[in-house]
């Protein structure tokens, strides 16, 4: 299992009249080939911005720091032309809503072969043959006919499959999928999750799966990193982070979900609402909502500490973390 992408101390901030406004505040993680890396968090936690920063797709005005090493090259300091080659060929992205990320007026063929011809320099005939292969790969029925269609002629699930086919066109090694199933029904979602799982296994593809849906992460991810207010609060193997969550925020999230085996148990929501970038509390950003809050939480940002079951977490109140820190 080799590390494909190594992100260290990634920071994204906006320069405002009142000084820098941090959006992503020192995030580090590794993504391995053939594995699904899950990035969890609620809206405003900075998970999408993290992905956009890696791809160089941040809105104008956003400033970045830190490094993201893919094959010895730093994505964060790459020149525009080189980054454009990397994007699509080595790193590809799938977005939440295929209706808005596919061009409504162009045929599927045009959108699927554009990449092949521009990035790989294929002839039209070659590109068409490859396009049929790709659509077969993502299980689109009758791929030759599908190539002549337009996005509106396909259902949400099929559009998402087409989007994945476009992303796979240049055989990238990392697929960044931002909420790829959020707009879909559960029955269709299950199919997309199985498709991503199969691609990961068969093609040794690394997948960065960004979602707020812990069920989706549990099903697919090998490792999970949980973000809150721009920082990582807990990360590690999925079985640990989801099955035996320790950080009060992760545990709170899991408890607020409907549980499959205990329907009679009431949902236990986390008090309050997630903090946006402009209103992030000092110290541990989660402290105003935390049941276990102690005075130091409100002043010092807790560091991520590795505990012996393979996870890292940022909570000084946790007994295991406290014993290690001593």
């Amino acid at each position, binding site marked *: 299992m080799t590390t494909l992408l190594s992100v260290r101390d990634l920071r994204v901030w906006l320069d405002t009249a009142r000084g820098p406004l941090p959006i992503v505040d020192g995030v580090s993680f590794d993504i391995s080939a053939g594995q699904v890396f899950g990035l969890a968090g609620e809206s405003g936690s900075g998970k999408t911005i993290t992905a956009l920063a890696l791809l160089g797709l941040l809105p104008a005005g956003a400033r970045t720091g830190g490094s993201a090493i893919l094959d010895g090259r730093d994505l964060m300091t790459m020149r525009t032309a080189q980054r454009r080659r990397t994007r699509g060929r080595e790193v590809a992205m799938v977005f939440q809503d295929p209706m808005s990320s596919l061009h409504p007026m162009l045929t599927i063929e045009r959108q699927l072969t554009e990449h092949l011809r521009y990035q790989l320099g294929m002839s039209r005939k070659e590109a068409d043959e490859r396009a049929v292969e790709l659509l077969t790969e993502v299980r689109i029925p009758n791929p030759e006919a599908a190539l002549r269609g337009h996005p509106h002629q396909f259902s949400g699930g099929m559009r998402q499959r087409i989007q994945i086919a476009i992303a796979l066109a240049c055989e990238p090694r990392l697929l960044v999928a931002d909420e790829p199933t959020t707009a879909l029904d559960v029955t269709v979602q299950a199919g997309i999750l199985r498709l991503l799982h199969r691609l990961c296994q068969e093609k040794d593809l690394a997948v960065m799966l960004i979602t707020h849906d*812990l069920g989706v992460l549990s099903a697919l991810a090998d490792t999970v990193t949980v973000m809150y207010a721009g920082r990582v609060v807990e990360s590690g193997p999925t079985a640990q982070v989801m099955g035996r969550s320790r950080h009060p925020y992760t545990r709170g999230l899991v408890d607020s979900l409907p549980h499959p085996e205990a329907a009679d148990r009431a949902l236990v929501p986390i008090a309050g609402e997630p903090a946006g970038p402009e209103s992030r509390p000092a110290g541990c950003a989660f402290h105003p909502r935390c049941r276990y809050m102690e005075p130091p939480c409100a002043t010092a940002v807790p560091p991520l500490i590795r505990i012996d079951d393979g996870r890292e977490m940022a909570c000084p109140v946790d007994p295991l973390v406290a014993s290690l820190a001593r």
Partner: protein
Amino acid sequence: MSLLELRDVEVVYQRRDGTLVPAVAGASLDVNAGEIVGLVGETGCGKSSLAKAAVGLVPVASGSITFEGRPVHVLGRRARPVSERRLQLVFQNPYESINPRRTVGAQVADAFAIGRTQARSSWRPRVEDLLRQVGLPATMARRFPHQLSGGQRQRIAIARALAADPAMIVLDEPLSALDASVQAQVANLLVELARNLHVGMLLISHDLAIVRHVAHRTAVMYLGVIVETAPTADLWTAPMHPYTQALIDSIPHADGAGHLPVALPGEIPDPARPPSGCRFHPRCPRVMDRCLSEVPELVAKDGGRRVACWLHEAPGGARRAADGPSVAP
């Protein structure tokens, strides 16, 4: 008699080319006072159309809708009849259903102004009461919607519905625009309100898991028809219809165990050209010969359940579900 009764409701839309699309093709459902009924199904199954028909936002092509024993009128140019003010609707997106240019308090008080039910002097304390009832501080009345989070806005939308002193609230996907931790807060609020105010609720959702925690009874809809209704706990532990089973199996669990959910093959068909026989038969893992040609009726079973599936055909003439009384949990 139930508080809200839908009987063989059909909702038909017309496409631009003239094709008639029966979005709801004969659905019957009852909701009693103080009861939360969940209505689940995939996109395009007609659940939102049924919800809109239930409050008179779209006309029904056939069938009937009665609220407190009187037929529900289709919304037109005239004001809604006074008798229907106690039938309220909450929409999915609280960013669109609330006016951004008016204070929260003024919007909650709309119901008093329209209903002319109370003296103007009592509006303010009543608005503050309502805000507290939905778990917001009374000071929220002076705020504008942009100062509120998604969860707070959805609470305001619920407070607006409550201002009309409703007996029945229809909620169309009220939780799906909210973050997970906030979703649980609003879900618990609905349960509390139904219990404390004895309000009936029809909760439309694509999320079977959350409905399971909130609803007393759940109805499963597929391509315009209701295929199964049952007390929620029974529906979950022992689903009778293969479609209900498929919905349950496709839900991923946040337990870290790494089980891939089971996908249901195929897609929901075009409602303008529904499959013959049982509408679910092309996707059904347990399809039989008769499913291809004969339409299964929604028949009553033990324990207040109803199911429309040939696998559960009752021996010796089952009652037709729509004629039977509804069973409260």
